[in-house]
């Protein structure tokens, strides 16, 4: 190791030798960096899951423009909008087609008395262009009363149910005392607000949600004429519909707005974002502690090196070398532990928590940056190394 580093740096790896000489301190420092990494990874993992589960429902639907009530916050947490708005929209130049979309939460009761809250999408089976292709294929079948597509990622539903569904065997369960029959699956995944997703026809939706009326869907989905500008049609819709009660969004913008809302205006998003910050601070403080103690412990040696003619860049090099060692060797265990915890968390909660290369790279470079910053602060102590004090 030491010979390799000597070759790499073109000088003796003093920082590495110094750190590895004091094994206890090195272990404590690495554990600290790994722990900070773990903190950041867990927060980012949960934030990622939050983001995933926020945009995942969008994968069920298709459409150029989303028209909603201004009372709603996100796709799945929306107010109701009058269906007459849809007829108004259909009269506007450039609008090719429009459908109402009904979204609500239904309790799925298991045989054992437990239940799962399912986010239920009521879709117009006559207009498959507003459903994702893999949902559209199944829409015809949903015309049969009280049938549904059940989310494979639903929390609290046993895996055997999905095995049976894959084999084509329907699965009947109860919602509010009525029987619903799952005849197929979708793959959306549980989120923070619901345990899973159910896709049904708009007729079935209204039957199971007696308080909801066909005249007041959750959103209106709009497709524009081929070749028409989505932006132009959006502007026309905004001019035609009352801005104080109706919100018109391009579909991609709606997903982005949901993400922004969930991560900055909902406490969950803020808490986990704050957690990332805490993790970073913990890491910086630990590395600073280790490096500045190490500098203080070696002032005499550094003063000796100064007397021998070593200059400031050499000493900065030592401290940054130590920061680099801590960053790399602290990141590895932190990454491994986080990967294991992600798996555990995902299997327990069914949240889409997974280690992504982008996150890992981000955290690694963040660790490097944080360690370098701590190193930079710790180098202030180098000034205390005065060769005149050596004799």
């Amino acid at each position: 190791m030491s010979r390799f580093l000597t070759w790499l740096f073109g000088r003796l790896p003093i920082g590495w030798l110094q750190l590895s000489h004091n094994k206890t301190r090195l272990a404590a420092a690495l554990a600290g960096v790994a722990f900070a990494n773990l903190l950041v990874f867990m927060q980012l993992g949960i934030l990622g899951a939050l983001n995933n589960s926020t945009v995942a429902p969008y994968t069920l639907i298709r459409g150029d423009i989303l028209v909603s009530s201004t009372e709603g916050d996100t796709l799945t947490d929306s107010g109701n909008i009058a269906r007459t708005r849809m007829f108004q929209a259909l009269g506007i130049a450039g609008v090719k087609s429009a459908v109402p979309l009904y979204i609500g939460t239904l309790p799925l009761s298991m045989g054992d008395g437990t239940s799962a809250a399912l986010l239920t999408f009521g879709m117009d089976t006559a207009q498959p262009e507003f459903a994702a292709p893999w949902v559209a294929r199944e829409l015809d079948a949903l015309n049969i009363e009280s049938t549904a597509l059940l989310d494979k990622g639903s929390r609290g539903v046993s895996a055997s149910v999905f095995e049976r569904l894959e084999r084509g065997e329907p699965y009947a369960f109860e919602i509010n005392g009525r029987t619903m029959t799952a005849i197929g699956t979708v793959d959306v995944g549980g989120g923070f607000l619901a345990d899973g997703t159910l896709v049904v026809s708009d007729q079935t939706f209204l039957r199971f949600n007696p308080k909801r009326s066909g005249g007041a869907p959750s959103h209106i989905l709009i497709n524009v004429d081929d070749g028409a500008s989505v932006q132009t049609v959006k502007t026309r819709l905004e001019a035609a519909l009352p801005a104080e009660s109706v919100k018109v969004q391009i579909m991609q913008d709606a997903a982005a707005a949901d993400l922004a809302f969930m991560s900055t205006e909902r406490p969950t998003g803020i808490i986990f974002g704050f957690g990332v910050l805490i993790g970073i601070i913990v890491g910086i403080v630990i590395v600073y502690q280790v490096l500045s103690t190490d500098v203080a412990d070696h002032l005499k040696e550094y003063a000796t090196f100064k007397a021998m003619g070593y200059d400031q860049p050499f000493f900065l090099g030592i401290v940054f070398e130590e920061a680099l060692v801590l960053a790399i060797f602290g990141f590895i265990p932190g990454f491994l532990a986080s990967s294991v915890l992600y798996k555990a968390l995902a299997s327990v909660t069914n949240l889409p928590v997974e280690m992504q290369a982008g996150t890992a790279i981000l955290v690694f470079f963040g660790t490097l940056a944080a360690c370098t910053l701590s190193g930079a602060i710790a180098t202030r102590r180098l000034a205390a190394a005065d060769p005149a004090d050596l004799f």
Partner: protein
Amino acid sequence: MGPEHAITVVGLNHYFGHDEARKQAIWDVNLNIRKGSLTILMGPSGSGKTTLLTLIGCLRDVQEGSVHLLDQELRDAPEAVLVALRRKLGFIFQAHNLHESLTATQNVMMGLQVHGKGNARLQRAASHHMLGLVGLSDRLDYLPGNLSGGQKQRVAVARALVSNPDVIFADEPTAALDKVSGVSIVRMLKQLGQERGTTTVMVTHDNRILELADRIITLEEGRVVSDTSPI
């Protein structure tokens, strides 16, 4: 000063502290030290030996008067000049000041690496050779913690000599050692210095070393009170 002198000191005064606490430690010192000689600085504790050594060794800023070291005026010299000059010097301290996490070889290599010359393999070979000269060829890869006091000081001597410095400054290099190893280290220093034409300035109280000196300068209360050449 002339070309035969490694060090020339003219009208050197030095003060510690400020205002009322200001105290003069060096009083009007004038010296020429010949190249290749072994000069010993003596004097009671507090007489200013260390202060004088750090001043002419460019470890401490010159306040008043002038110090020429290897043809370079130290007074008001920029830090970069001092750093470059220090690379032509060797220091041996009372405490060996070896780096505890470096082996004997690596400690000696540090004396070479500062010059940035040669690759690690050559530096290692040169360090092994130097450690052989101070009688430590069987301790090359020992950490300082596993060496005796005399062995550590010999590593420090090897580190100071390995880069063939023009001047060696040593402050009581034998104080932490028993008499026998103390004398043997100074003999070694003198012999290696003679072979290489190195100038050596050494502070010591050790009477048994005096006979090795080309010149003995005695300080009292910051002044030179005697200057003799025993040989």
